[in-house]
């Protein structure tokens, strides 16, 4: 049967559409011209300038503090949630629990941002790094729970019961059987939570206070008021880190499977 070439053409057009802006941005980051209106020779001046911007470094530090701490707590809460959803699947509590985990995934970010802002204002909690941390844990839990739950559904829980039958206590079963089996899910969930936390702008912008600038908030104000070549250079560095992380996580998952 002769197949239409149309789907192939559309797919190639989509990939071109996806990468065109990114490639132009990377090229422009090495452009000596200030306005990017034409090629004026290869230059690293924007990268050099970037290293002399203390605010970017401060924002990066804030972002990393929040991403690491929010990921750690979200991993604990998301994993216990996944275990509960898996073990007690049919109970009434777990149906409510599942709705609770699932809804934040479909709610637009701006609604979560504004509701947390209202809550913090009403509870008179001062906005700052701590409120950003609380918000990030909240939206990361659902993603971790979904990834870990998918992993749990893939393996035979009888192994855990067998360990208990053979006399392993609660702690030994968790540490020697459950955790090693869940490890790929925990790594995948943790990476996802970390990326979501470090990239989040909308929710963070609502709950951030003075002096708690994160990297996306800094990028936003640079886009609105700053100099474009600096953002090009910063974006290129972030793109390289992202590509590296994606390739690495692909490697990990390939080794595991």
């Amino acid at each position, binding site marked *: *049967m002769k*197949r239409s070439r*149309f*789907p*192939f053409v*559309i*797919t190639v057009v*989509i*990939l071109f*559409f*996806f*990468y065109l*802006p*990114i490639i*132009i*941005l990377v090229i422009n980051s090495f452009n000596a011209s200030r*306005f*990017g209106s034409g090629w004026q020779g290869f230059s690293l001046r924007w990268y050099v300038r970037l290293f002399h911007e203390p605010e970017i470094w401060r924002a990066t530090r804030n972002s990393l503090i929040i991403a690491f701490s929010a990921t750690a707590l979200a991993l604990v*809460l998301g994993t*216990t*949630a996944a*275990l*509960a959803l898996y073990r*007690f699947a049919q*109970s009434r*509590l777990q149906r409510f*629990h599942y709705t*609770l985990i699932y809804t*934040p995934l*479909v709610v*637009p*970010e*701006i*609604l*979560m941002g*504004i*509701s*947390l*802002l*209202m*809550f913090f*204002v009403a509870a008179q909690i001062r906005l700052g790094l701590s409120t950003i941390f*609380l918000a990030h*844990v*909240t939206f990361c*839990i659902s993603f971790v*729970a979904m990834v870990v739950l998918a992993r749990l559904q893939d393996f035979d829980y009888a192994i855990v019961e067998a360990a208990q039958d053979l006399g392993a206590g609660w702690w030994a079963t968790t540490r020697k059987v459950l955790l090693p089996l869940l490890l790929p899910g925990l790594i995948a969930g943790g990476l996802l939570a970390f*990326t979501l936390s470090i*990239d989040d*702008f909308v929710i963070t912008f*609502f709950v951030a206070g003075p002096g708690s600038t994160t990297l*996306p908030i800094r*990028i*936003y104000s640079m*886009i609105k008021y700053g100099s474009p070549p600096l*953002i090009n250079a910063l*974006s290129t560095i*972030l*793109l390289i880190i*992202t590509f590296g992380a994606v390739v690495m996580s692909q490697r990990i998952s390939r080794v595991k499977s």
Partner: protein
Amino acid sequence: MPVKIETRKKIQEWLISFPSVFWLCLFFVIPTLFVFAIAFRSSNPYGGISAGWTLDNLRHLADPNYLVVAWRTVWISVLTTVICIFLAVPAGYYLARISSKWRNLFLMLIIIPFWTNFLIRIFAWKSLLHPEGLIKRLLVFLGLVSPQASLLYNPGAVVLVSVYTFLPFTILPIYAAAEKFDFELLEAARDLGARPFQAFRKIFIPGIRTGLVTAILFVLIPALGSYVIPDIVGGPTSELIGNKIAQRVFVDRDLPQASVLSVVLVLSVLAPLIVVLFLQRKRGKAEVMLLED
């Protein structure tokens, strides 16, 4: 004793569910209820919330300015969804039919932009569409637009960048559904005399229905709540409801008015979800009826 085991199991369940249930009730359910409550409060001059209840905020919704913004939010979101689906269906079909080696490469190429920072992707388009940017100069060179025309700060730019941002979320569920589709059905339809497009439309499209519904919701819901894209590439003539919420919060410091607008947004997001649930239930009934026949 069975009763004791049952109780122990119940306690175990509560213990292991407690941390996440408690956290999400405190930081998700209660804050959402706050939005609904604050919608009926008035603001105080210090940007806070004053005591006492009022319906004033609701009355402000009748402002014709808001109606224009609401209508624009709907048409920009629907147009974005339609374009995404038209691009994602052929792409999902193609990905499901190629060899796994090529498929993995293409899937990875589609996922990578989704991992890159969302602000950076929007900024990349802003510089492309900029008066000095590549696309503008190319279009002027080809004589397609006048040198005075602006490609930025209009609803078209918002739709373009929204499609760019949400397209990966549409391709993946459609591909996942297409992968499970039995392509021999298409050949059977062809053998029975269907034209290629007819077979595609009448056999393939219904076959990937669940993927299509997921894909539509994955674009429509975030598009309705979109705020950063119109803020960066849109101008005053392309503000959406999300921008109005942000303005009430950051510019006017009128939290009650922002709450009312958020309630409107919640309802507009619930509308497509309810339609989907309703259709699914109706289908379920129709299938039961077919079985009874």
